[in-house]
């Protein structure tokens, strides 16, 4: 008798309760007399909820505690007295006995496990039946009490609607809980990290090499956690190179599509450009690593500049392409929000369309465009796959775009994949980097949204 079976049984009971209560309510609404307050279906829902919800809540709690109860029952049995004291050995025997009892296996290595198996099976079935019995009892009593309340005067609809409101409020609180969860988990692990590594070293250190020494005499792996090269790499790729690509292309595309293109061209080109934002980042990363990076290395070498096969330029360039639709659609929105009167006024004074755009529309739309660019930067610095696949791992502090740099997100992936032990500064450093990333993107978003909002208000 598994938990799933019991849950299905309870759902069946709920259905029966719904039908019964609705039938009762229909009977009294047909018989005339006082006009009932609620429709029969609401009475049905009321009784069904009372039959199902308390029992399901009990079942959820029971499925978590019953394993502990079974374990205690087994340990209290006379057969368990002979078990060795050594914890690992005891665990192994208990594990075998459990597998034997549930029928998952039928071979044993330890004779004690065979002796323990019937005890285990007995405890399992006892607690399963107990769980079933109590759930059914709760379901029946809940349903019965609710059923007796069904009468023409009973305000079932009000009760149901109050429940629905509570569920709605709970659902909208999940977003708050998620944000809180992100913040608390990042902060908690970061504090553990900062108890091992000084925050000053983390924020101002120039050297990043997160390998920890396995032996004391090992050379060159003392573990340095200076994150400046990471911050620089992130800004270099996400906020400088990517924006040099994305801002002119995005802005000019938006201007051309809103001001010059025929409606039919616009109707086709706008969704086409939006595909660029819908392509998964892993595809961009593969494109950057396979096609763009080798071309850029060859270009750098032919110019006589020291180049690496994983360059900041390749990652930044491809990231810029990915960002174009963001900049473009934000610019599009803010140009469209400039009042038509300003545009008409400029054109009526004899200015050409490009003069109107350059002297009137863009300056008027600038706050919106800046907000859009900030949002784009926040997205670029949080972008992971492109830099993981194309930017490399070497923490260089260089301004040469043909060299390899590393970013915050690359290092998070690097630190958390592979073998993990959860007390080393190496894995905890990833959470500290995550905290920095979270706070920076949050700040950028808040500032950007505020700028955009203020600007919209100015013209409304």
């Amino acid at each position, binding site marked *: 008798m598994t938990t799933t079976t019991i849950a299905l049984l309870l759902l069946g009971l709920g259905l029966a309760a719904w039908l019964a209560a609705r039938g009762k309510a229909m009977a009294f609404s047909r018989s005339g007399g006082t006009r009932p307050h609620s429709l029969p279906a609401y009475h049905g829902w009321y009784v069904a909820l009372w039959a199902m919800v308390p029992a399901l809540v009990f079942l959820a709690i029971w499925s978590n505690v019953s394993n502990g109860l079974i374990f205690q029952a087994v340990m209290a049995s006379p057969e368990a007295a002979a078990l060795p004291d050594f914890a690992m050995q005891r665990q192994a025997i208990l594990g075998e006995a459990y597998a034997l009892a549930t029928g998952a296996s039928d071979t044993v290595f330890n004779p004690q496990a065979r002796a323990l198996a019937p005890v285990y099976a007995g405890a399992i079935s006892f607690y399963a039946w107990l769980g079933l019995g109590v759930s059914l009892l709760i379901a029946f009593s809940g349903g019965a009490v609710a059923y007796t309340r069904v009468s023409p005067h009973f305000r079932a609809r009000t009760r149901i609607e109050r429940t629905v409101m509570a569920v709605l409020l709970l659902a909208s609180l999940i977003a708050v809980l998620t944000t809180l969860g992100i913040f608390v988990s990042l902060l908690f692990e970061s504090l553990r990290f900062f108890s091992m590594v000084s925050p000053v070293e983390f924020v101002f250190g120039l050297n990043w090499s997160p390998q920890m020494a396995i032996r004391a005499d090992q050379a060159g792996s003392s573990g340095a956690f200076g994150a400046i090269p990471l911050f620089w790499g992130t800004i270099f790729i996400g906020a400088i190179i990517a924006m040099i690509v994305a801002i002119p292309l995005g802005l000019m595309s938006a201007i051309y599509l809103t001001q010059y293109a025929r409606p039919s061209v616009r109707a086709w080109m706008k969704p086409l450009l939006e*595909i660029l934002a819908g392509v998964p980042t892993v595809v961009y990363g593969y494109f950057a690593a396979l096609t763009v990076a080798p071309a850029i290395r060859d270009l750098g070498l032919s110019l006589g500049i020291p180049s690496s096969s994983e360059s900041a330029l390749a990652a930044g360039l491809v990231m810029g*392409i990915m960002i174009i639709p963001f900049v473009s659609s934000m610019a599009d929105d803010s140009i469209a929000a400039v009042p038509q009167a300003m545009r008409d006024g400029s054109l009526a004074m004899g200015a050409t369309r490009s003069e109107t755009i350059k002297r009137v529309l863009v300056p008027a739309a600038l706050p919106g465009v800046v907000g859009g660019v900030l949002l784009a930067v926040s997205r670029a610095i949080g972008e992971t796959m492109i830099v993981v696949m194309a930017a490399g791992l070497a923490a260089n502090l260089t301004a040469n775009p043909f060299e390899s740099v590393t970013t915050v997100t690359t290092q998070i*992936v690097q630190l958390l994949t592979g073998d993990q032990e959860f007390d080393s500064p190496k894995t905890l450093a990833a959470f500290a980097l995550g905290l920095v990333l979270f706070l920076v993107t949050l700040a950028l978003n808040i500032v950007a949204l505020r700028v955009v909002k203020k600007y919209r208000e100015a013209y409304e």
Partner: protein
Amino acid sequence: MSEAFDKVDPTPTDWKAEAMQRRIRKRYGAERRFKLVGLMAVLMSAGFLAFLMWTMVGNGARGFMQTQIRLDLPAEQVSLLDAGAWEDAVRVGGGDAIFSGIAWRTLRDRGARGGPIWLPAADAIDVAAKGEGTAEAERAYAALAARDRVRTGINWTFLTGSDATDPTVVGIWGAFKGSLLTMIVTLALAFPIGVLSAVYLEEYAPRNRWTDMIEVTINNLAAVPSIIFGLLGLAIFLNFMHLPRSAPIVGGLTLALMTMPVIVIAGRNAIKSVPPSIRDAALGIGASRIQVVSHHVLPLALPGILTGTIIGMARALGETAPLLMIGMRAFIASPPAGVSEPATVLPVQIFLWSDEVSRGFVEKTSAAIIVLLVFLLAMNGIAIYLRNRFEKRW
């Protein structure tokens, strides 16, 4: 008043004068150049997209094909087939040097009968057939081709198989099934929670500081980098709640938290666009506030909500970084049987294959990308169709 007029030069501007004409030409030139720059920007952006697609299709189209080699089993070896010793039969016919590691399966599926049969070629020969192999493999391929023993066929294994170390054996079904299970979990969580939150915030929430806080939180959550959700999943679902690593249930939970704000924002916009007169009419004939929403507002807002949901799901389907954090990058050679089995998903599979050194994986990676892009484009296409077909202008 008259003073200002006195200062103006009384002679009218001579628009036909050379200086004026030059100025107008200059301004019109600037206009044309500006328009051209705009056009170039659009064309360049579209060009990047075209180049990206062309590269992927160019590399990936071959991933759906495989080189096959005819096996002519000598008459005296046919007894091997009767004995069911398929692998021995392949070895007699040429062995691992020219046949793929799973060539014997094709032989087995045909059953015990002699005669020529086409079997998948080994990776080295496959690459050589495309002109990029080693000199040795090229020679072997040329020898086979000279005896007319090679052809190109459709690689069905790629659509039905799972991850493997040999590029001729790999397939995307395992990763696809993982993606499917993950998406089911994501949809089952994110859609109800997202719609309910949108309804609450748009229809019932009182205007106060708490509601403002919830709104700001949801807007910010939509812009949090995806990798942060991966860290959350790792810290909460794996380290705190001890859910199974690499499982679609954890991936689905993580992606649901990421997708939910997108659905909330789309849902609120859709609900907002339902005109207030409909609510007033329903309230006027005695419906309760819950009935107004569930009988009138939600059905009218549903197309908009669905469009937002599909777009959010498409984003989740292409997401890689958070799933790397929760361990879905493991090597998994069989499709997952349920939501708590270890699995991988399509984008992560692409990432894993892109790291492989073997030349044969390049085309497999691109082919997997084509499959992923087809699904994403189809989803976005459905969303656009829904929007155009059902969106009402009130």
